[in-house]
């Protein structure tokens, strides 16, 4: 894969709308056959980036290649990509069959063949028997499938999806997640997927790009982003975490705001302000004095301020001098439970914390 041509290669792309910078100097490479998600809060530039790949917006500067070909200012109808729009954008005056065969007809395929191929695609997305219906006679999930079929029937080299599941209810959404994923495996086409839902991105994608305020913050697998976030924003945005402010003392120690020292190997120079990201499920709670000796240097003392029973786990809010930590411990029957007000110690394995400097 290393020497293969990238499906999408974005180099130094910036998009300005008048004075607003929507996408700020982004570099991004998406491999052929990859399920790639772009994740971020609304207004972070992920949709604009997708629209630039589709050709619906042109970059203000930078280079954008699709399979090696520079497409920066090529109109959308000249690009080997297709899009599933956020609200599907199905043509209301056409039947499902005409919607799905539209792209083929526009690219010069004759009517008979276009209809036949559209029919096959309609079967693939399990809409047999719906071909003669108009979009407004379909449910949301069915419209979603038409939108998918309408794009895929053209055999795009890259399929772009703009929050495709946003309008569906939870159960349907989970169904479509699995279906999209297996469809992508079957076809082997790169899917580039925009979402603000981190769970969706984590479950479906091979790699995820996290964006905020037009900037690309980090690209990596779900595990990379979860266990090794590059910044406070990513640590906080992906999953839940406790961020503890600290200063680097030396390459093995950090100093917390109350002066307490913790063992935390750090690549940062002494004096750098950092935050330690601790996932709630990596922290353990116990009675004071019960901290195992190996974890002595990665422990804190506090008081339980709230405890909630979630069935499979207990969630404690532990207040430690100046901060509150969230702790999530799996429910093991034998394990001791703590009531609010209990004086406890918390500790974690020194491999499970992670320092972010930005």
């Amino acid at each position: 894969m290393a020497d293969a041509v990238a499906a999408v290669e974005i180099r130094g792309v910036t998009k300005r709308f008048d004075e607003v910078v929507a996408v700020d100097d982004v570099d991004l490479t998406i491999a052929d056959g990859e399920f790639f998600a772009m994740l971020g809060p609304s207004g972070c530039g992920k949709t604009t980036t997708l629209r630039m790949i589709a050709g619906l917006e042109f970059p203000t500067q930078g280079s954008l290649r699709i399979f090696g070909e520079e497409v920066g200012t090529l109109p959308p109808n000249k690009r080997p990509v297709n899009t599933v729009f956020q609200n599907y954008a199905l043509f209301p005056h056409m039947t499902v069959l005409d919607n799905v065969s539209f792209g083929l007809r526009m690219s010069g395929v004759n009517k008979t063949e276009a209809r036949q191929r559209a029919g096959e695609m309609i079967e693939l997305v399990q809409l047999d028997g719906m071909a003669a219906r108009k979009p407004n006679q379909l449910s949301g999930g069915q419209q979603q499938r038409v939108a998918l079929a309408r794009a895929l029937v053209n055999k795009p080299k890259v399929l772009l999806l703009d929050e495709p599941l946003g309008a569906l209810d939870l159960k349907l959404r989970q169904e479509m997640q699995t279906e999209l994923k297996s469809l992508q495996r079957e076809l082997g086409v790169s899917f580039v997927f925009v979402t603000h839902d981190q769970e969706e991105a984590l479950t479906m994608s091979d790699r995820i790009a996290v964006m905020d305020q037009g900037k690309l913050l980090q690209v990596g697998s779900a595990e990379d982003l979860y266990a090794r976030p590059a910044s406070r924003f990513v640590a906080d945005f992906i999953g839940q975490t406790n961020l503890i402010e600290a200063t680097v003392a030396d390459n093995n120690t950090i100093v917390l705001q109350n002066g307490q020292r913790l063992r935390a190997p750090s690549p940062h120079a002494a004096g750098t302000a950092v935050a330690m990201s601790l996932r709630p499920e990596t922290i353990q709670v116990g009675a004071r004095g019960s901290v195992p000796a190996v974890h002595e240097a990665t422990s804190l003392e506090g008081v339980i301020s709230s405890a909630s029973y979630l069935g499979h786990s207990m969630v404690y809010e532990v207040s430690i001098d100046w901060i509150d930590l969230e702790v999530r411990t799996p429910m093991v029957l034998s394990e001791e439970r703590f009531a609010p007000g209990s004086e406890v110690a918390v500790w974690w394995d020194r491999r499970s914390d992670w320092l972010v400097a930005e």
Partner: protein
Amino acid sequence: MSRPAQLRRGPKWLLGANATLVYLFFYAPIALLVLYSFSDDNLVGRWGGFTLDWYRAFGQNDEVQGALSVSIRVAILSTLISVVLGTMAALSLERYRFRGSRIFDALLYLPIIVPDVTMAVMMLLFFTQFLNVLDAVFGIQMTKGFTTVTLSHIAFSISFVSIVVRARLAGMSADLEEAAQDLYASRWQAFRFVTLPLITPGVVGGALLALTLSLDDVVITQFVSGPGSTTLPVYVFGLIRRGVSPLINAVSVIMLAISIVLVVASLVVQRARGGEPA
């Protein structure tokens, strides 16, 4: 038995009477007009037995025939041109933001609020000056006539067409045009197969409005018409001043019939529309 949703007797009766009065008010004049157009008497409002003479006279009167022909030609030509221009104006205002688009927007609707008489005087002044300039600079001698009438009808129709088309466009998401382009349609194809079929009811409605406005107009036409370019309404207006003959009744009934045919035709066209790329 209590039926709270039912109106009591008194109000129900009043409501019926009101409806009857309103319809009477609307349609009694029309009924009278149609009736007297078949009256065999030289006075407009006196019944003298049934006759088709006035319609025969309509068919034989060269002046009326000429005016009708002018009216129809002006209406069709001005409608065609104003529909194209009005639709284009609507598309540009609704889909693009450009320098001065808001000013253009406001100016486009000015002809709707300007009173007919003012519009007529403006047109007259403009054409007089324009024809003078044409003569002085290019040596082209032109008088007011068919062209000036058609141009002024186009001028006041564009605004109406563009309002109707815009209302339709506003309800149509721009996503659809993007989706068409994403599916390999050129801009023209996206317009032809997606935008146009979806705004057709608006365009037909606008065309109908333009046609009706053009066929109806008296004031502006009278100011800018010249010899040989008298339209039917202007001719009728002239007849009244010269002394009324029941011929007017027949002419009016025919104009009414044309309007009704137009309305029905537009409804049929809008229903029959299906869309599919050819």
